[in-house]
Structures are given as structure tokens and as C-alpha cells.
């Protein structure tokens, strides 16, 4: 067996260990068993092996120590190898101490002093890094010490260590509170938890106010924990908070986090302690907060709790502020849920996200009047088209065209069961570079049964005439007071949505036909003489019978039809905001329509082409 025990092959070594657990003494002599444990211990210490392999060996060893007295006694004899050194990584130090604590016996070499002094390296790293980075490893070891040897001198020493530690490093308070909670769950009596909590609270109350202010956020965490314990004096907590409010500028500086933490402590006191024991002091504190705080939110919450305190009996306050059960029933409703003072970001999700859209945005069939007027000063006597064209174009460039408005409706999709009611909904349409920012739409309340739809008027202001798919986000508050987010199906803004009719010219005796002819002539001249590269003309033949074409014109392009020049030729004038024009002259024959196109924006020719081809394919314009 010995020839295999020296292998560097990890699976082979694992196989030997499996045999040891399966066959115990039947396969391994005592000397071999001793060597096996030694091997694992020394591999954990072997600088030449990868750290991950060393860790794995130490995990294996730990499992043997738990079941084998021989392994435990042998590790005690060689404990010097388990004392962490500066050459070990943080993970190795942690794992070595886990094993070392398994060998703890205060009468042996692995005693309290050794275990506590072995924390020195981690303690220094915590001190000098001045952040929580090294905290988790240190507190895991401390908790391992405590949970494996409760009621011993080691456990008492751990408590003292934590008390001293948090006094020197207040930024470790979140770790200390987590440690306290774990200790509370581990203990039957809960004496260590209370002693530590009281001791640390005492330390905080004895601090100079400047020190308290410097670490106020951490100290308020402790006060909130202490306030939730009926055995802790509420007077002491309130006195400290009053001192903080009066001698530090926390209320006037308007620190949102600290302000909410302060309110959180007050709520904990109201939840836990009888109001008769603290009525005057707490009222005084809340009054101080709502009269001196610069933050409206904190003022209102303090005022609310003040009103509760002075107007409601103790039992009703407790009922209102009762904590939600940890099982998290969906139907649970309490003031504690709706008025959270904890503004810290929850660790996993701060917003509940829904994978499927909880609402759908659909167009309404009603159409709006798109006509608009444009003030153009034209000398009607001269009747000079070039003058009309120049002045019209100048007016168009300076005019503010109407926005594109589309009536739509928000409704619950048929098979959506996740959300049936909500309030405070906000529909956000993502910004597109071709459009001006779109304002959010607010939906106060919707209920699938009572208020199944909500009408909104979508408004778009194009910067370029470009059909676009807009992403829609809907944030809302559910009936439990949680913030939720759902992505809705995108909204398609089509090319024909951007159409506006030619304007009615104000201040000049010029009708739409004159304007159309003027524009047509100008665009064609410009194209012919190539004086403006943005103008373009084109011809498309649509294989649409006359009857169908006339139907389209009368139904869908009615607003844009200027005139029937003669029976088979129709003029259509369209404005595309912000300042483009599309002019059609449609020569309608029995089986086909020849569309002559003129535009002052050559870039939209492909879009026009697509629009006309869609019209041919479907027998009606685009997707209308």
C-alpha cells in the first residue's frame, strides 16, 4: 500500500481514501493509516503543490478527523503545520484553522491562546485594508470556533475578540451583526448573543460623539438590531439617537441613507417595545426628526410614526408594524412592507423582473385629423412659383410641425396570469437616435377585472423620417409594494405613420394644388439641373387594377390626395417631418398604376419603394 500512498495523482490518492472509509482497519495497518493522515496534512502544507490541490487534501483530512480519533490525535501532535503563516493564502489559512479547531482541547497544545493568536494575520489584513474584503474569512473562522466549542473558554474568548474588533474597526459592523445572528441561532439560551450585543452597544454609547458621527451608518445598524430586542433598554437607544440628532448635523445635511436608518431604528422600537416605557422620549425624538430634517421623505415618515405613537394604542401600532413572516406569503400586507426604511439595495434583486410581458400596447383603430397650417407670406399677384417655393421651404424649416400622434391602448394579454393588478405604472419608451426623447406615460392603476385597459396617445417627434421599432419598458408597483419591471413587445412605428398632409397655407392665396404643382416643378427642375443633390425623382409601376387603386386612394390616402388632374392621374402630396416631402403622380390604368415620385430627400427613396411594393403586395398601404 505504501507505494501508492506517495502518489501525486489526485484520483489515485482519492481512491485510497475511499478504500480507507470503506474497509477501515481491514485494509490499512495503523502505520499506513498514520502515514495516510500525515500525507494529507503535509500535502496541505506542501508549497510545491497547487493551492487548490492543497485545499482539497485539507478538506479530505477534515472529514477523517471528524470520524477518526487517530486522525484527530495525530493532528494535535503535528498542529504546528496547521498554524497559518504568511506563506499561506487566505483560503488555506481558513481551512487550516478549521482543522486546528477540530483538535481543540484547552488542556493540550491546541488551546484557546493558540487558536486566537492564529487569527493575527487575518486580523492585521482587516485592519490595514480598512474594508470588508478580508472580513468574511475572519468571521467564518470565528464562527467555526464558536459553533464547534460553545460554552467553552474558546467561545468566550471569541466573543471578547469580536467586541474588541468592532470597536477598533466599525466598518466590520455588518459582519458582526451577521455573526451575532448566527450565534443567536446556534445558542439555546442566547446568553452570548445578548452579552455581546449589550457590550458593543455600551461601547458605542461611551464613544465620543465625533467618533459616533464618523461611523454613524455602522452604529445605526447596531442600534436597529438592539432596538429589535425586548431585553435591551429602549431608553438607552433613544438617548443616544437624541444626542446624535442634537450634536451632529445628520438631519440638516440630508444624508438619505443615514436618515432612513434613523427612522428604521425608531420603527424597530415601535415594533418591539411597549410605548408606555418610551412614550415621551420617542415622541421627542420623532418630533426632532420631522421638525429638523431637511429631507421631505424622512420628515413625512417621522411625522407618520409620531402620529401613530400619539394617536394609536400600543397593540394597534404593533399590529400595523408587524413584520412579514419569513415564508413571504403573497397576500401578506402590513405597514412594515409598504413603508420600508431600509434603502440599501437588496443583494439579489432590487427590482422583480418578469420574463413575459405583463401588458400589451395595441393601436386603436380611430384616426386623428393630421391637417396643419403653415404661415407663408406669398405675393399672390406675381404668382411666381420660384418665390412661393423658396418662401415655403424657408417657412417649413423654421416651423414646428405637428408631432406624430397615435392612439393606443394598454391591455392585459389574454394568457397573462402573473400580474392582475398593479399601481404606479410607468411606461417608458426607449430613446431612438432618430426621434426626440419621448416622455414617460403614467398609469395610476390597472385591474384585469375592473379596469382592463388604459388609453394613451403616443406622441413621436422625428428628427429623421425613419420607421422604427421602439423598446417598451413598464415599471410598476405590485400589490405587495414591490417594484417590478416587465419588457413589453416593441412598438412598430411604420413609415406611413409619419405621413402628414401638405399644409394649409396661411396668409397667401395658395391652395394645396398650387403648392403641390410648385413643389413638383421645383423638385423636378432641381433634379434635372442637378442643383440640389438631396432632391430625387423616380418611377414605380404597381400592378394594381384601377378599381383596387382607387379604393386605396379613397380609403387610406384620402388625406393626402391633392387632386384628380384628369380622370386617370392623381396627385398625392405628403410631408414627412421634420421637413421632407414626397410627391406622387399616379397614372392609373386598367391593370396597372404608374407612380411618378419626386422628393427632396433622396435617402427615403428605398422607404418609399418598400411602401409602394407593400401596397402592391397587400392591396393596401403598408401594414395599415
Amino acid at each position, binding site marked *: 500500500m*505504501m507505494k501508492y500512498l506517495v502518489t501525486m*495523482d489526485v484520483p489515485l490518492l*482519492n481512491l485510497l481514501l475511499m478504500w480507507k472509509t470503506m474497509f477501515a482497519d481491514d485494509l490499512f495497518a495503523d502505520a499506513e493509516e498514520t*502515514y495516510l493522515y500525515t500525507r494529507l496534512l*503535509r500535502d496541505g502544507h*506542501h508549497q510545491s503543490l497547487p493551492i487548490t490541490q492543497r485545499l*482539497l487534501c485539507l478538506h479530505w483530512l477534515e472529514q477523517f478527523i471528524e470520524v477518526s480519533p487517530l486522525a484527530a490525535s495525530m493532528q494535535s501532535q503535528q498542529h504546528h503545520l496547521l498554524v497559518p503563516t*504568511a506563506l499561506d493564502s487566505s483560503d488555506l489559512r481558513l481551512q487550516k484553522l478549521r482543522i486546528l479547531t477540530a483538535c481543540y482541547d484547552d488542556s493540550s497544545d491546541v488551546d484557546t491562546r493558540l487558536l486566537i493568536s492564529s487569527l493575527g494575520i487575518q486580523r492585521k489584513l482587516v485592519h490595514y485594508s480598512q474594508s470588508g474584503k478580508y472580513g468574511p474569512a475572519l468571521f467564518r473562522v470565528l464562527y467555526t470556533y464558536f459553533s464547534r466549542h460553545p460554552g467553552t473558554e474558546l467561545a468566550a474568548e471569541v466573543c471578547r475578540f469580536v467586541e474588541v474588533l468592532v470597536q477598533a474597526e466599525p466598518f466590520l459592523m455588518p459582519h458582526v451583526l451577521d455573526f451575532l445572528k448566527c450565534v443567536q441561532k446556534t445558542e439555546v439560551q442566547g446568553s452570548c448573543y445578548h452579552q455581546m450585543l449589550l457590550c458593543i452597544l455600551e461601547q458605542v454609547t461611551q464613544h465620543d460623539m465625533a467618533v459616533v458621527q464618523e461611523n454613524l451608518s455602522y452604529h445605526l445598524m447596531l442600534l436597529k438590531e438592539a432596538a429589535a430586542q425586548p431585553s435591551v433598554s429602549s431608553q438607552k437607544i433613544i438617548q443616544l439617537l437624541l444626542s446624535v440628532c442634537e450634536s451632529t448635523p445628520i438631519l440638516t445635511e440630508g444624508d438619505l441613507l443615514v436618515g432612513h436608518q434613523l427612522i428604521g431604528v425608531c420603527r424597530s422600537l415601535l415594533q418591539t417595545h411597549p410605548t408606555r416605557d418610551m412614550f415621551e422620549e420617542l415622541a421627542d425624538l420623532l418630533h426632532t426628526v420631522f421638525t429638523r430634517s431637511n429631507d421631505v421623505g424622512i420628515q413625512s415618515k417621522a411625522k407618520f410614526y409620531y402620529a401613530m405613537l400619539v394617536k394609536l394604542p400600543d397593540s394597534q401600532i404593533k399590529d400595523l408594524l408587524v413584520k412579514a413572516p419569513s415564508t413571504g406569503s403573497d397576500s401578506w400586507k402590513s405597514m412594515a412592507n409598504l413603508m420600508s426604511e431600509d434603502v440599501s439595495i437588496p443583494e439579489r434583486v432590487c427590482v422583480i423582473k418578469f420574463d413575459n410581458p405583463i401588458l400589451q400596447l395595441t393601436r386603436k383603430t380611430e384616426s386623428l385629423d393630421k391637417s396643419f397650417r403653415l404661415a407663408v407670406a406669398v405675393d399672390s399677384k406675381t404668382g411666381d412659383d420660384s418665390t412661393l417655393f423658396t418662401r415655403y421651404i424657408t417657412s417649413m424649416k423654421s416651423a414646428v410641425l405637428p408631432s406624430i400622434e397615435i392612439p393606443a391602448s394598454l391591455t392585459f394579454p389574454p394568457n397573462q396570469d402573473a400580474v392582475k393588478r398593479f399601481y404606479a405604472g410607468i411606461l417608458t419608451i426607449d430613446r431612438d437616435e432618430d426621434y426626440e426623447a419621448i416622455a414617460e406615460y403614467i398609469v395610476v392603476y390597472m385591474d384585469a377585472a375592473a379596469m382592463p385597459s388604459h388609453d394613451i396617445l403616443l406622441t413621436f417627434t422625428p428628427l429623421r423620417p425613419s420607421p422604427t421599432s421602439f423598446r417598451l419598458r413598464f415599471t410598476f408597483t405590485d400589490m405587495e409594494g414591490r417594484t417590478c419591471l416587465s419588457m413589453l413587445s416593441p412598438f412598430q412605428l411604420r413609415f406611413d405613420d409619419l405621413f402628414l398632409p401638405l399644409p394649409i397655407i396661411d396668409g397667401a392665396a395658395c391652395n394645396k394644388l398650387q403648392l403641390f404643382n410648385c413643389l413638383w416643378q421645383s423638385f423636378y427642375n432641381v433634379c434635372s439641373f442637378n442643383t440640389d443633390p438631396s432632391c430625387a425623382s423616380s418611377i414605380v409601376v404597381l400592378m394594381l387594377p384601377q378599381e383596387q387603386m382607387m379604393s386605396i386612394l379613397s380609403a387610406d390616402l384620402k388625406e393626402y390626395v391633392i387632386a384628380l388632374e384628369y380622370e386617370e392621374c392623381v396627385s398625392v402630396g405628403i410631408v414627412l417631418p421634420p421637413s421632407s416631402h414626397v410627391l406622387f403622380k399616379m397614372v392609373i390604368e386598367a391593370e396597372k398604376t404608374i407612380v411618378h415620385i419626386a422628393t427632396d430627400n433622396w435617402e427615403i427613396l428605398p422607404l418609399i419603394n418598400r411602401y409602394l411594393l407593400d401596397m402592391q403586395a397587400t392591396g393596401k398601404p403598408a401594414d395599415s
Partner: protein
Amino acid sequence: MPIIIMPYAYGRYATVERRAKILQGEQYTPIPSDVEFEELLVHEIGLRFPAYKFIESRDGCKKVLQKPVFQLPTPAGNLWPLIIIEQNGLLFLCLPLVDVQGVSRPPLIQIPGISVGFSLVLSLADYLGPLTHNTTETSVRLIDAYKYLCEAAPFGTPLNTSGALVHQLLDSKPCSGSPSLRSPAWRPVPYKGKPQVYIIISEQVRCAQYDKAGVDDVWAVYGTVSCKAELNGAAPEVSLGLDYHRADCATPIQDLVLHPCAHCSWNQTLTGIEDSTLLPTMVCFTPPPEMFVLCHYTANMCQLPIRGFYQMREMESSVTIMLQVKLNPSVQNYFDYCEVQMPFYNRGEITHVDSTVSVGKVVTSNDKRILVWNIGEKFPSNTLEASLSSTLKFSSMSTPSNTYEDPFCTELNAYAKVVFKVSNYTLSECWVDVKSISISPSAKAKVLTARDVSSIDYRIWNSHGNAPIADCSQS
């Protein structure tokens, strides 16, 4: 056994997943999609939130870590045991099959898949080596990873995970000798050519010297014996003797761990073994064709090769340092290189240096944050000592810097790092007696040996500052 190389490649084996479904029944947890998996992993290993912020699921003191074995919570249940190792800036992951029935979470020892998967990902990481920054999912190196997995773990069952061996198998035809000349699995391709044996002993020394009363310095000397045996035949056997010549330590070499192809004979009977003093006289092995690590060892050294005293003090606007280093007389006084690096963290850039040295020269690093004293190839023969005294000034810390700042090294907390390499020498004086090498079947092979020792993280801490040591009195 899915293999993942974050953030690039992703491989899963339907055969293994099918077996897991059958074995675990209703307790089976499906593996999520790669995008979801990556998101969950980033959360689990604590990269989603900054380290300084307390996150209970990550930092809670009740959380038991079993690195490199992790548990990955998914919406459908927990994926365990997930092996994660980090190498060359990549995460290598493996989720092995747990074929222990009746227990939801058996001890690690009882899951052979963990050690097998661990070996596989380590070998894969070695096989790939460092990747360049512009590596993409379609890069040749990552395609090589798939080839490796096809050869090393067909259908998700690891067979022969050695990277060099897989390389040879991909490039060459396997041995097709007669049944009487069957070669071992690790030697599928026979060597044909001039027989030669290379043996390299490479030793490293790490240390931390404190110059503090009541605090012992710590150091570790360890090494590897690597071998490349180019020998004809299907299964040649080599035996060699490891020897040492130190009078100050009874057993300078210990904690020998051998390559699985090797076995050894012992110089003590089993009943007399006292834990680590196990030392073989002869190591016998049938070598794989590539260069391989025959064994790892540690050395029991009584004295440090270079002892130093680093004294740094802060003046009003400058820092003065005095550094003395002395070579142990027993160490060979001829270095490939020997220099002392004194990094200055949390101080800004070095703007002024006024140095006096007894030997060598002093320069500052390109980033102006490290003072480098190049001692050269020899210490003065008469004293074996060298000293440096220097005064430095620094720019203000206000200049933005992207360089690493060790949070521990503030004010007087500082160290000097000795970087050296000595060829044809080992601190343990471990060596291979060429005459002891025998090859079976007999062959006249040329034997080449080499040895060297180099420092890794050899630190001398400032006598006047603090150091990461377990002396509670100073914390």
C-alpha cells in the same frame, strides 16, 4: 461532466447528464443555459458586488466553503459539486457526476468524480497555457481545448488527461507493437532515436523575515525533479537514486510525492516510519515520452540562504532606507542573477533617489514605484555581505494611478523582495547520482542533469513597521 472555460468555451456531455438523471431521479438538477449559468456563477463567486460591501449570501459567516468545490444555486435546485479553478486569468469549471446513491450530499472523499474532474481541469489549464487578450471563441487554442477533451475525456469520461500525452496522441499514431511488448497507457507512442535521459532538479525558496523579537521567520524550501527519458522500446524502466550531501540536517528531503508511473524502495521499514521522514533510496519508473514531473519534495532547511535586515523610516518629506543582506557561507556564491526589489505602495511615484551601495547598482522601475538594487552575480567573497542606504522622495498621491496598491503596505509597513537564481546548485543539495541510473532493458543512454534554485516571494519586512504575522500584541 460538463467542462467550461470561462468566458469562452462550454462543453457538456449528454451521456453523463443522462446518467445523472437516472442516478438522481427526482433530485436531479438540470444544468441551465450557458448564459444563465454564467450569470449565476458570477453571483456565486462574488464578482457581482464589490468586495467591500457585505452580501450575506456571499460573506455570511455560516457559509462553509470547500474550495475548489462550490455549490451553484439555480432556480431548479443546487448544482454540486462544481469544481472551479482559476489559472492564467481564466476560470476552469467541471461538474462531475455524483454516483453515490442514497445520500444527497456525500463526503467529498466518496465522490471519485471530484478528484478526477479536478485533475482534468488542471491538465486542461496546463494544456492551454496562457491565452492572449484577443482570444475569441473561435481561436485555435480554444478549438484545441475541444480536441483535448475529445481525446482526454471521450463521452465525458476522463481516460488519460496528460496534456503532453494528448498532444502526442493527436499528432502521432499510437503504439501498435506485439502483445508481448504492451506499453503502459501513459506511453502510447514509442520513441525512436538516440537514447537520452534529462533530469532537472528545480528548487524554490519562499520566506518572510521579520526582525522582530519573539517572532520567528518563516520559510519553505521545496522542489521538483523533472525528467525526460528518450528511450527506445515499449516500456523501458529507469531507476535512479536521489542523494544529498548536507551535514546540518538529518533528512533534508521530505514529503516526497511521486508521479503515478513511479514507485520507490524505502530506506526504512514501514514500522519505523515517523511521518515525514520517509525517504526512498531508489525511484523506479517507466517514463512517459514527454518531460514530466517525477516528484515533488520539500526540504528541511535549518538556515536561510540570504538573511537580510530592512530598515525604513519616514522623515518629513522623504524616506530613508537601510538594507543589509548576507549570504549564508554554505550557499554557492555565484548567481545567475540577484537583485532586491523594494516596492513602495500608497506613496506616489519615486521622484528622487540618493543611494549608496557596497556592491552593484540601484535603479528605479519603469513605473517609478519600485527601487531595484541589482547586486549582480556575486557577493563580496571576504564578507559575503552587501548593504544599501538610500534616501527617496515621492510625488504626491493625487496623481491617478492604475497600478496595484497593496492595502497592507501603508506608512512603515513595507518589505524588500530578494529575487535570485543559482544554477548547478540546490539548497537541499539534492542531486541525482548519474552512476546510480540504470535502464532496463539495458541501453547506453546519454544522461544529462541540471539543477537550480530560485527565490519566490522572498521577503524581508521592515524592522520598524508591521507585517502580516500572528503577533496579537502589535495589532
